[in-house]
């Protein structure tokens, strides 16, 4: 049984707790503190001067600072929602394709799907920027073969953000497929046997057994997908620089531009705090939604 080895516990925990405390928790608290300060990132923290809610007024205000932030917030919300809405159903469908035992090759498919998750995002961004190339890019060439005209992809404000969502989905869906498979293996086979005896067909079994029992897995997947989606940076920093006309300006990119490149540390921190609050609200709402379904 576990025993009270207090001194040993202190030694064992010291490295990890110190490092996470200093390099994660402390900066997080500093971000919150800085969001109420006027502070240039070029200067020591001691130079910060308290401005109350001034930064928050500014980032939600009518000036260009406010307009840019609100655009970035909206773009991030759209990007995140689209990513989750595409990744979750695909991960279940792909998970079923890997998990089924009627046709061989499931494990090979899993390997192919998951391999994209190992690829550095920077390489993904480079490859897809070429795939999306309007004139000689392979995607438009392939669309041409099936009679669809060339798409502007990253070069149009209407399609640029969606194009980045698609490359994100391509990269990440394998990881979520593995999570879905983990959920599927937890469902007792006897449930399906009983349902078959009761005359339930495949789609009924999916609807009344598979989906409800995957709910916890999907909740976990949704949370991770949201956290991953707000981190999108490389394709934007490298290819679109937030454009065309701000259509791909997302929060991670925008906060870094304001807080590091323009050294407006107070404003950038206020934006980071809003991102943190939005995440807390979204994740809590998701949990509340799933828990209510559970109690139904």
């Amino acid at each position, binding site marked *: 049984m576990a025993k009270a080895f207090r001194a040993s516990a202190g030694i064992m925990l010291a490295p*990890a707790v110190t*490092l996470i405390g200093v390099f994660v928790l402390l900066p997080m608290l500093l971000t919150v503190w800085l969001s109420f300060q006027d502070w240039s990132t070029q200067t020591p923290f001691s130079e910060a001067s308290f401005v109350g809610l001034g930064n928050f007024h500014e980032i939600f205000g009518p000036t260009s600072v406010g307009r840019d932030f609100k655009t970035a917030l909206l773009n991030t919300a759209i990007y995140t929602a689209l990513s989750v809405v595409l990744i979750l159903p695909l991960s279940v469908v792909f998970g079923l394709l890997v998990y089924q035992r009627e046709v061989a090759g499931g494990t090979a498919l899993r390997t192919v799907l998951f391999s994209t998750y190992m690829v550095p995002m920077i390489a993904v961004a*480079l490859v897809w920027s070429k795939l999306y190339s309007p004139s000689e890019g392979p995607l438009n060439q392939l669309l041409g073969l099936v009679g669809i005209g060339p798409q502007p992809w990253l070069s149009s404000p209407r399609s640029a953000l969606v194009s980045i969502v698609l490359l994100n989905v391509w990269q990440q869906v394998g990881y979520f497929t593995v999570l879905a498979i983990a959920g599927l293996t937890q469902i007792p086979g006897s449930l399906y046997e009983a349902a078959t005896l009761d005359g339930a067909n495949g789609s009924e079994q999916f609807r009344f057994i598979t989906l409800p029992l995957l709910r916890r897995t999907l909740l976990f997947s949704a949370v991770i997908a949201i956290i991953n989606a707000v981190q999108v940076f490389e394709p934007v920093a490298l290819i679109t620089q937030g454009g065309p006309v701000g259509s791909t300006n997302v929060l991670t990119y925008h906060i*870094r531009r304001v807080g590091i490149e323009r050294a407006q540390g107070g404003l950038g921190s206020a934006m980071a705090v809003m991102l*943190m609050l939005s995440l807390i609200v979204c994740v809590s709402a998701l949990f509340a939604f799933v828990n209510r379904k559970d109690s139904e």
Partner: protein
Amino acid sequence: MSAATRSLARKRPSGRKALLASAMLLVAVASAFPLAWMVLSSLKTPAETMQVPPVWIARTPTLEAYEKVAGVINVGRSMWNSLVIASVTTAGVLVTSTMAGYAFAKYSFPGRSLLFSVLIATMFLPPIVTLIPLYRMVGSLGLSASLAGIIVPNLANAFGIFLMRQFIAGVPDDLIDAARMDGASELLILYKIVAPSIAPAIAALALFAFVYHWNSYLWPLTVLQGNADAYPIVISLSRLLSYNRGAVNTGLVMAGATLAVLPPLILFVFLQRFFVDSIVGSAIKG
């Protein structure tokens, strides 16, 4: 296929099987296509990359593009930097995670579950939330523009602690108590008794950490502030982008991307069992 299995196969609805098989093939092709195209393009001549309709496979594969990459960025130096960043960080993560994981799994002490919850909460914190003050802090420590600045803040992470705690909890207490009876110190027990019995999980964590830090972009870019000598390969790649205007340099960019992709992908191909098992493990036990 023997006659017997063929007749067996016929008993199943074969249309359904064909549909399943083609769906699987379609998904696999769509998933593999971008990386396959990347490698194939890196082997083409500039003329071939511009051709319409496209040439999918080079008539005579050439390493010309790779030579050109070596002319634009210092490939050896960048790969070495990436290797140092990824391996040193991984080593640190393994040490800090196994120690903390052991404490959380096998000791009881006041505030254990509170401390664990606080640490785990940091797992869900996007790095951008701490980036601005962290950038300033690392600068004040005199670590900016150096490999140490990239590595030090990442030597411990909540995911590692979580994963190690899950697996160490499964190590029998009798094993640990027996070693204590023999007078072994706690650190000795951790590295001689506990660690070997969760070797696959440690391997999984090592691979995860290595690939994650090999691929990591935002933090190195922010810390290094243009010190090209310390660039890992993923940051050096962005330099190829100034050569990225127009299709003439597609081969160059794809050759650079291939170089950055190969190490994590090779690790994955050989060790994917560990990756997959630990994801499944963390999801189910979590």
